[in-house]
Every structure is written in C-alpha cells, then in structure tokens.
C-alpha cells in the first residue's frame, strides 16, 4: 500500500513539474530519543550520488533539485542507517530522526549473539541460546541450574521447579514473551508449563527488583525471550533432534521464522517429546514416562517507531508419577522410607498409567508499541491464559479413569507502560496492569476440591527510574503498588471448620449449611507495596560493584489459604489457613564483578529477611479409616536467608578453560530458632572445557557436580503406632540425603555440509552421571521412594537453515 502511494507520488510529481530544477532541500538530522541535533552525519542523495555532512546544528542542504522524489541515506556513528524518501516541491524542509541508542536496537533487531540484560543493577544472569539448546529434551528447571544460586525442587525427575536462592513456587515469577505465567505455580508438584525450545534467551533476575514485571517475586524473576525478528528479508530456522538412553526416548523441535524488510514477520515453532520409564542405576523408575506436545505461532509488524505482534502458544504435558510414590497411609510411608529400593519396580514401559498428571496451557498475547519522538516508548498488551490441570490417581471401580483433580484456571491481563528514555541519563518507566482470574474446580471428580472455585482481581502500578550519575555510576530505583482481591466459594467439612476454630473467627462468611459441609465465601483484600533501589559502580575497566535493596510484599496464594484435603501421592493431609496474611521481604544484595584477561569472576551475596514467611511442614497425624496420615500445615514465621553465589571462569590456554559455579545458602526460622525446611545444600560445579575451531569446531567438557549433605534441617520426625506389627515406629521424614558427586561429559562438532548455503549441522554426544552413581537429593519429594536418575547417554543433532 505504502509502496503504491509512493509510486503514485513519484508519477504525479514527475507529471506536474518535470523541468523545474531550482528547489533547495534543507534537512535536519536529530536523535530520535532526545531530539538533539546530530553533527557529522553523512547524507547521501541517491539519485544524484551526492554526499554532504551535517553541520553542528545537524543541518544539511542540497541545491538545484528538480521537483521529484529523492532518496536520502543518512548514517551516523552509533546509529542505525536510515533511508528516507522525500518529495521535493519547491524549497522543502524535513527532519530525519536517527536511532542513537545501540542497546535499544537490540530490542528490534538481532545483533548477532549479543544478549541484553533486563535490569541495570540487579543480580541477573542470562542463559544464551547455545546453552538452552543443550537442554532441548529436558525441562526449564533443569536448564536454569546452569545459573549459580539456582537449584530445583523436584517431584521425581520430570516435575522440576526452579528454586532461586532457596525460594520457589509463588515466590518465583516466570515471564514468557512478556506474559506472567499463570499456571497454578503454587504447588511443588506443579511444573512450569513452558517449552524451553520456544526461548531464545533466558534471564534470571534474583530478588524482586524487576518491578516492571511484578512486585511479589521474593525469590526472583525468570524472563524467557522468544526468537526475535529482524527487519530484513530472510527465512531462517532450526531443527534439534535428540535421543537418549535413559527413558529410551527423545525430542524433536523445529522453528521457522520469515521476516520482511518492511518489518513484517511470522514465525512458528513446535516440539515433541516422548520418554518411557526412566532408570535409576539399579532399577527402573516405574511409571515415570513423559509426553510433551508444544507449539507456538507469532506474527506481527516490527519497526523502530511502531509495531505489534500476536502470539499464541500451546503445551500439553502428560507426566507419569512414580508408582512407588503412591502410598496409602503412614505405615506405607514408613515401609517406603525403610526400604532401600522402591516397593514397585517393574520392567521398562512407555505406558503412562495412573497416577499421572495431564496439563494443557494456552497462551494468547497481543502487544502494540509506539515510540514518540523525544519522549519514549508506549507499550500496550493484552493476554489470556487457560490452564487445565488433571491429576489422575489410582482409583477403583467406575472412577478408575476419572481425574481426582480437575482445575481450570483462566487469566486475563491488560497492561500498559511508557518508558521515557529521551534523556538516556535519566530514564523513567511507568506502567500499570489489571488482571482477572477465575479458577473452576470441577465437582465431577468425586473427590473433594483441594483448591476451591475462586475469582481474583489484581491491579498494579509502578514507576522505575534509571539515572546515569556519571560515566562510572548508575543508580536505579522504583516503587510499585499492587492490590489483590480474592473471592472464593469453598466447602468445608463441618468437623474441619470446627477443628480449625473457624467457627469463632469466620462465622460471618458461611452462606449455606448442607448438613455435613458448610459453603463459605471468603473475600480477602491485600495491599502490597514493593520498592527497589540499586547502584552500580565501575571501579575501573576490570572491576565493578553493585548494591541493591528490595522490598516486596506477597499476598498468600490459594493453596496457602484454602488447601484442604488428602494428597494421595504424598500420603499427607495438606491444610491451608484462612488467617494467613502477606509476607514481606527485605533483601539486601551485593555483587562484585571482575574481568581481566583470561580470568573473570562474579560474586553475589544476599541477605533476605522475610517477615511472616509462609511455609508448610508436618504438625502431627490424623486418624482415618485408612490409618494415620501426617498433617502438613501452612504456617507463618520469620525467616532469614543469606547466601553466596560464585561464578568463576579461567581461560587456561587457547583451547582449555576451567570454570566453577558454587552456591551456599543458610536459611533460618528466626522466630523458632531453627533451620528452615527445604533449603538447598552447598553445591559446587567445576567444568573443564576444551574448544578448537579448527577441529570442526570441537567442543568438549567434563563437569563435576558435588552436592554436600544438608546438615541444617528442622526435625519434624514423629513416632507412630504401627498396627500390623504392633510397634511404635519413628517416621523419619526430615533427615536429609547424603552428599553426592556426579560426573557429566559433553561434546559436539559442527559440520558445514554445504559451505555456500551456510547450513551448519551440529552433532553432540553427552553423558550425564557418567559413573552411574546412585544418589538421592534432599530437594526431591520422591527421595523417600527411589534413587535419582542413573547414567544417561544422549545424542543430538542440530540443523540451522
């Protein structure tokens, strides 16, 4: 359309004044952001092949022009070259805006392998594409362990949740393609519904400082960035195939992107994963298979000044739950803990039987942006998410194939923000968001709802600022306010209502009494203030220091408030508490970065004080006809987390390098003066790597992973009478696992089969747990039942095109 208009204009101008060639064109070249004139820009008049430079005021002139359309190409150091067509009709004046901030350009164009950080002074690590690709067949949680200070809390080996500096679940916000993931992230056995293959880079921001995303990320924020489009005509894509021995399965992932120089782009991506039963060194982990289907589409228009995109993604995960982990009561739990091997272990199978989880997640997003000259950039966004979660249990009779949990969580979000970046030394970012969420727990399951029906409204607003104090010092600060309103309708058993003493505190919220159960309508409001301030100072060319303070308030999630029932897979009764209030975190952090010649080091320290920290731990047992069950209660206390994360790299030689990542964390319940539960043990990873471009770009590494025993854990063990043996036995649910050491090997080469077309093929061979070591990890909920994974040999092929 635009082309047509220009073409018409050309013809019209030619017809009208074909011979008038006395016009002067006066031009002005300005910086788009702050409107300042650009001196020394080169202006090329294409039709006449003439060059001029701009003067100190950014001005330039061309004389004796005919009345026609001319094409100017304007270039300036540090700017993107711009081409503009101008219709000359008598003496003409026009302004040409150039883009002067190279870091801003990364947002719209691909700059090779460059990676932009999302924050200025926060403790942020970016995982690049080449690292993400090696986890193509694995999960997000596995890949994030590449970051020092990030571990995972697992339910078996397929449900992997990231833990940032000892915090997880609702305290870690996951942003995918600019959308805050809403996938019932509260539960430990709820893995993030993300296909890692859809991300081009992943940023891990420790602490809650990234206020533009959220105010309640007490642990941190994980930002997944999709494949970016560049404004030029091209078609590119890649396919990664991997196969592995452990689980006897593999994955395939393909992506394809088409871009046009006008700024239009369209891309698609799909992945498929299939694994059967995984294997510990000495036995099969029966019913631990996994099947994942995922795809995403994106299309839009992207120019520097304005653009929009529409994004849709879908993921369907079916995950088997270790058969041996399905237990009936405390006695079964004792038997499982006391048995050195899982009580159910059969031969290999691809079948995924009950218990299992089946989760689908749809995400639709549309975003629009526009840049305003000498002002900044406006973003508008709407997104919708639909999370459908089924949990199947071992059931009898007609209910055999009925899910025991059937939850549909729908979320609509609307967001707007404006970044004032005209003055690059003083950037302001303001924004607001509105979110509506509806959870529906299907009563057809025939099992009482663990999480009730609820509606939730969230409103948030923030302002952040970045101030380049001087060449070496940058300061940032921000404040955010969030309002949360939750309106639930929940049935309580009368016996539970009384046992919790709700009859005295909450008698006014009962809306119906149906005999054995009460229908109640809890409505809660939470006002949350969060704030952050940070400073980063470059001591010299090789070293820099950063300090930060984050204040965050997090409202309790539905699980902490409303959980009520027996979790079969865990053999425990989980109870939320309506009285739980917000938790508040004060986090202080310091970062020292050193980078000289062959050596680089990043040292991050933090001190996180959390008032009214919400946690769950065993508080006794309850007798039912099935026997006794441990009761796990959500409680609040004051917590203190402090730790140290270190990342070291040393280039030993041209081809050899040595690196280490270590993290130590100490978590305490300061109210009760004892250690916090589920705090990761000290971990150190050392990698010896070899790289040689001449040898088909051979890359190889040997990785040593050493995890010590967590000696600091709260003792929640209890003694239970065991009817069948007529004895009292200790139920040891607290003791942590032994230290372990694993070796991993990776290698890859790149072949250029067709040198003219530049379609390199990368072939890799990796071995995890090289020595087939048997181990269990303290942060795996299935540590009572079975060992972790044994040796896994993996072959992968990556084709770029």
């Amino acid at each position, binding site marked *: 359309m635009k082309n047509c208009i220009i073409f018409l204009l050309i013809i019209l101008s030619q017809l009208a004044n074909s011979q008038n060639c006395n016009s002067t064109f006066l031009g002005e070249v300005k910086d788009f952001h702050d409107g300042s004139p650009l001196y020394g820009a080169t202006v090329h008049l294409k039709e006449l092949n003439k060059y001029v430079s701009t003067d100190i005021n950014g001005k330039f002139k061309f004389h004796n022009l005919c009345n026609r359309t001319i094409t100017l190409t304007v270039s300036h150091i540090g700017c993107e070259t711009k081409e503009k067509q101008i219709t000359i009709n008598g003496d003409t004046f026009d302004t040409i805006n150039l883009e002067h901030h190279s870091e801003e350009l990364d947002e719209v164009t691909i700059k090779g392998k460059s990676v932009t950080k999302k924050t200025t002074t926060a403790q942020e690590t970016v995982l690049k594409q080449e690292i993400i690709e090696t986890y193509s067949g694995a999960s997000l949680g596995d890949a994030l362990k590449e970051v020092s200070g990030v571990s995972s809390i697992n339910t078996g080996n397929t449900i992997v949740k990231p833990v940032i500096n000892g915090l997880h679940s609702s305290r870690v916000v996951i942003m995918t393609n600019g959308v805050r993931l809403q996938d019932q992230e509260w539960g430990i056995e709820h893995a993030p519904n993300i296909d890692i293959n859809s991300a081009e880079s992943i940023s891990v921001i420790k602490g809650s400082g990234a206020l533009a995303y959220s105010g309640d990320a007490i642990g941190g924020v994980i930002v997944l960035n999709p494949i970016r489009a560049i404004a030029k005509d091209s078609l590119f894509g890649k396919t990664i195939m991997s196969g592995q021995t452990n689980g006897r399965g593999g994955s395939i992932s393909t992506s394809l992107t088409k871009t046009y120089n006008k700024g239009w782009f369209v891309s698609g991506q799909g992945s498929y994963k299939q694994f059967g039963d995984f294997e510990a060194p000495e036995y099969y982990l029966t019913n631990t298979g996994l099947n994942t289907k995922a795809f995403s589409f994106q299309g839009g228009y992207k120019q520097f000044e304005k653009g929009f995109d529409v994004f849709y993604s879908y993921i369907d995960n079916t995950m088997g739950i270790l058969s041996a982990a399905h237990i*009936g009561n405390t006695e079964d739990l004792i038997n499982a803990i006391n048995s050195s091997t899982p009580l159910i272990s059969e031969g290999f199978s691809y079948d995924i039987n009950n218990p299992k989880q089946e989760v689908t997640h749809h995400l639709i997003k549309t975003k629009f942006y526009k840049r305003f000259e000498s002002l900044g950039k406006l973003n508008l966004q709407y997104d919708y998410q639909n999370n459908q979660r089924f949990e199947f249990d071992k059931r009898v009779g007609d209910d055999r194939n009925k899910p025991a949990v059937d939850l549909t969580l729908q979320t609509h979000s609307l967001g707007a923000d404006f970044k004032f970046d005209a003055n690059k030394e003083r950037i302001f970012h303001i924004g607001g968001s509105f979110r509506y969420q509806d959870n529906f727990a299907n009563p057809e399951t025939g099992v*009482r709802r663990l999480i009730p029906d609820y509606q939730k409204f969230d409103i948030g607003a923030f302002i952040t600022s970045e101030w380049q104090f001087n060449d070496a010092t940058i300061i940032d600060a921000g404040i955010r306010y969030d309002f949360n309103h939750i309106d639930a309708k929940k049935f309580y058993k009368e016996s539970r209502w009384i046992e919790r003493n709700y009859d005295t505190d909450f008698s006014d919220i009962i809306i119906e009494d149906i005999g054995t159960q009460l229908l109640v309508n809890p409505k809660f409001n939470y006002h949350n203030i969060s704030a952050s301030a940070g400073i980063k100072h470059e001591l010299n060319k090789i070293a820099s220091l950063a300090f930060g303070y984050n204040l965050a308030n997090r409202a309790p999630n539905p699980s902490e408030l409303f959980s009520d029932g027996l979790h079969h897979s865990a053999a425990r009764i989980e109870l939320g508490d309506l009285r739980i209030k917000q938790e508040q975190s004060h986090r202080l952090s310091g970062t020292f970065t050193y980078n000289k010649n062959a050596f680089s080091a990043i040292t991050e320290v933090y001190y996180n004080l959390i008032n009214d920290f919400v946690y769950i731990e065993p508080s006794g047992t309850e007798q039912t*006809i*099935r026997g006794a069950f441990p009761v796990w209660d959500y409680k609040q206390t004051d917590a203190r987390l402090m730790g140290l994360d270190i990342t070291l790299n040393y280039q030993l030689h041209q081809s050899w390098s040595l690196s280490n990542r270590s993290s130590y964390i100490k978590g305490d319940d300061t109210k009760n003066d004892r250690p916090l539960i589920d705090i990761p043990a000290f971990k150190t990873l050392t990698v010896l790597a070899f790289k040689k471009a001449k040898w088909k770009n051979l890359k190889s590494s040997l990785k040593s992973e050493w995890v010590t025993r967590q000696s600091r854990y709260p003792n929640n063990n209890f003694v239970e009478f065991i009817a069948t043996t*007529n004895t009292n036995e200790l139920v040891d649910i607290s003791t942590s696992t032994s230290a372990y050491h694993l070796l991993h090997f990776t290698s890859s080469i790149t072949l250029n089969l067709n040198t003219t077309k530049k379609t390199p093929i990368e072939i890799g061979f990796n071995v995890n747990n090289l020595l087939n070591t048997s181990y269990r990890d303290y942060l795996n909920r299935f540590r009572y039942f079975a060992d972790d994974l044994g040796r896994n040999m993996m072959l992968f092929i990556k084709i770029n095109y």
Partner: protein
Amino acid sequence: MKILKNLALGLLFITLTACSNDDDTPIPVNEEEVITTLIATLSPQGGGTDVTLTTRDLDGDGPDIPQITISGPLVASTTYNGTITLSNETEQPAEDITAEVSEEADEHQFFFTSSIGSIVYADTDSNGSPVGLAFTLTTNTATTGNLTITLRHEPSKSASGVSDGDITNAGGSTDIQITFSGIIVQ
C-alpha cells in the same frame, strides 16, 4: 470494592472475551469412593451369638477419628465364620463398597493381625489367590486382645508369604487400616 469489581468486569467486556461460570454457587462434592464404614461380622460355626466389629468415620479424611464399636465378647476356642462389608455412609442411601472390592478382587486383599486367635482366608479371586472378604477366625483361650484389619489396593499377591496373609511383602497402598482393641475372649 463494588466499583472496582464493576470496573474490572467492564474492562473484561471490552476485551471481548467470554469466560466463566462467575457467581454460580459451586456444587458440593459427595465423595464416591470414601469408605466410611467397615463391619466385620463373626458368626460362630454351629450357632450362637454373632459378634460385630464396626468402625465408622463419617467425616472421611476429616479430623474426626473413627468410632469403633465391638458388640460383645467372643467365646474361647471357637471357630467363627467372618464376613466383611464396606460402605460409604456419606451418601443417601449408603453406597455398598463391598461389591466394588469383590468385582476387583484380584487387586485387593485384606490382611489380619490378631492376638485373639488365628485367621484363615475363606475366599479366592479369579486367580485363586485369597481376598479376605470371607474368612474364619479360631479364637484362643480366654484373653483380651486386638484385631487389626488392613485392606491393600494393588498388593503383590504372588510375593512370598502374601497368600498366607503375611503383609510384609505385600506392597500396594493401604485403603483401610483399623485396629479393634480390647476384644474380650471368654
């Protein structure tokens, strides 16, 4: 709050999305598979008074403990024919769970541990393995003791000792476990 809610709903409308079953009152869930009640009936061979052992937990997994009743004393050195019935009394009328277990007998087995006498299975599943819905109890001499009844779902019936009623190697998950204590044998 009301304004806020209206504003929220208005915004939603603008974004032209349809959703949800908003202010509907949720339907209560009546738990179908809950076993609230187990009754073991012991009938002396050759006639006499039946003894029933009952456990009833009407709030299922709730905090209330099961109510246990023993109808009367057993007679020493006597063989009783025992039967077990299971039901869910949270439903009206009460649902009979015995039939379900009986239909899936190959996936279920009762185990008995007792100090008042010896217990032998009196029924089998389709594979000829014991189930335990029917059994015989031969009492010892006069004493006071316990009887524990355990129902395992998906036990390994072929494991060593399991067909003789030894629970040690049975595995599976526990559906019922209840101890009747203070049973008088006179």
